């Protein structure tokens, strides 16, 4: 092998650089979206409210992956494992210790943060495809670990656990679904604001410096090991919150709900939404929730193929995901204003 082969061509980054400004929406747009999210449940049926709740939950999970991949440039196929840990933490606390559902969420965030942080330690040595394999291993192992005999007393083994859905507090005249929706919405907004601020902070800049050029970052004094594991921890923590909310919304946890398929869906959600664009996470979540159903309704036997074709269409038209659409929209709006 010649020396030339040993050198990786420059400018061949795995994750493209997204400036931090471009990672969020403008204030006006945010307010409109927020208003729509607040009012919408009043007009729709319970099932649709449930789907909107799931959309927010998956949106959070995609957002977490986005912080990890779009922010710090690390790739993970293991998000389903963190999601499972969050879901089980909530389920076990609620069913065995009668902890209030709202209190389980910070607990599972902490547990998952620790888990992700510890997992990030050995993963430091790996990058790219190798990291993908390591996280993938975590995702395939998780359902099996949850089924282990000595954990069965807590996890309920293959059968899983049933979680009770909370009623609206203070005697509010709301259905359980609607209350859970607003509860999820509040958590989502809090985490979204946290994430935006995180990426704008010193830590966020460190993440992005590592993503763009690890060697340059470390020579500028960024503690690469610390921030890489921190990114893993934060991402796992947020995914854990999503898992907790998911367990409450679905009212059920079982090992086979958290297989590698979930991790792959979350990954697709991130790509469709635009890697490194936080609001896109929710667009991506909508894609992974609604498009498989749509494909099923178009053709039962060929639903997989229809899904694949739709996915291809999306990545052909907008290889950079929903972010590209948003940028185009902004440019159009700018032109209109000038005229």
């Amino acid at each position, binding site marked *: *092998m010649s020396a*030339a*082969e*040993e*050198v*990786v*061509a*420059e400018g061949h980054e*795995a*994750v*493209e650089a997204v400036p931090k400004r471009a990672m969020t929406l403008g204030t006006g747009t945010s307010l409109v979206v927020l208003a729509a999210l607040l009012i919408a449940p009043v007009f729709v049926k319970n099932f649709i409210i449930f789907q909107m709740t799931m959309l927010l939950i998956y949106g959070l999970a995609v957002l977490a992956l986005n912080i990890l*991949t779009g922010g710090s440039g690390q*790739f993970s196929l293991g998000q389903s494992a963190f999601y499972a840990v969050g879901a089980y933490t909530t389920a076990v606390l609620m069913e065995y210790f009668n902890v209030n559902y709202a209190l389980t969420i910070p607990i599972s965030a902490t547990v998952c943060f620790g888990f992700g942080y510890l997992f990030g330690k*050995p993963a430091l*040595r*790996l*990058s790219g*495809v*190798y990291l*993908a*394999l*390591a996280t*993938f*291993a975590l995702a*395939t*192992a998780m359902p*099996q*670990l949850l*089924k282990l*005999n000595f954990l069965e007393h807590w996890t309920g083994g293959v059968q899983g656990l049933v979680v009770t859905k909370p009623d609206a507090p203070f005697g509010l005249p709301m259905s359980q679904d609607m209350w859970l929706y607003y509860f999820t919405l509040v958590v989502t907004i809090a985490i979204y604001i946290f994430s935006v601020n995180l990426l704008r902070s010193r830590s966020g800049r460190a993440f992005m410096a590592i993503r763009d050029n690890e*060697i*340059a970052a470390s020579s500028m004094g960024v503690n690469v090991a610390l921030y890489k594991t921190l990114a893993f921890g934060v991402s796992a923590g947020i995914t854990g919150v999503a898992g907790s909310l998911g367990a409450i919304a679905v009212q059920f946890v079982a090992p086979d709900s958290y297989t590698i398929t979930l991790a*792959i869906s979350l*990954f*697709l959600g*991130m*790509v*469709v939404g635009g*890697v490194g664009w936080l609001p896109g996470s929710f667009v991506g979540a909508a894609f992974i929730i609604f498009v498989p159903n749509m494909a099923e309704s178009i053709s039962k*036997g*060929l*639903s*997989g*193929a*229809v*899904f*694949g*074709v739709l*996915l*291809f269409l999306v*990545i*052909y038209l907008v*290889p*950079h*995901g929903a972010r590209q659409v948003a940028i185009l929209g902004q440019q159009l709006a700018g032109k209109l204003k000038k005229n």
Partner: protein
Amino acid sequence: MELFTNQVLAGIATGAIYACMALAVVMIYQAIDHLNFAQGEMAMFATFVSWQLMQWGVPYWAAFVITLVFAFVGGVAIERILFKPLAKAPVLTNVAGFIALFAIINSSAGLIWDFTIKQYPTPFGSSPFLGSQLISTHQAGMIGVTVLLLIGLYFFFQYTRIGLAMRAAASVPESARLVGINTSWMIALGWGMASAIGAIAGMLIAPVVFLEPNMMGGVLIYGFAAAVLGGLTSPFGAVVGGFLMGIFENLAGTYIPGVGNELKLPIALALIISVLVVKPAGLFGRHIVKRV
């Protein structure tokens, strides 16, 4: 001790399956620098085509050759039609494309040939090999074919002009273009070859795991793991990695208490990760040096 030798032998036999698939994975990684998640499904589809040909009365070896040609042309066509337009898109978008391709092939195969499990013939017979209960002649044949394939690939890449051109296109595309190599077609050729190797793997594996649209799921995971273990840049490493995977898996199943079929994979993967933590480029991979 006898148990140990037996388990190692059995591990080598299953390892041959993984080695085959790992070889296909490394081939395409060399050509396009990505792991193709749809590789297993492409192999499965090709295997179904050969099965269909045999159902129509074509003899085994004729079907084998026709399928190889089909897989090669199919691989080139997929690259030209689906992935060439994505060449400039981000890497992660390409990965999403592989997942889409996976879904399309899997679901179409399910529709054409349905999901029932089918028997697949073997050209080597399935009597015990040299009197051993653990390795059948089919498994021995499989190991033989894998080794032959490896030697063939070595000569192809090392001693032919086109092999040299492919290596050049994969490692330094800009310079390769300057000396007149059509790098775009080299990538297509890489896809074709990987697809054909995958088809061989599929046809060798099918008698063991039986033919059905999801037959490659597990095998591909092991194949990936084997390729990563051996080092993604080394076809030889991939084959060694495949055999090691098989042995690992069998020994873990035998000696670690409480490990059933379901935990074999996580344990094998955990072992691989431990290897990677010590040697991040795999056992035989070359270290990638970054220019600062």
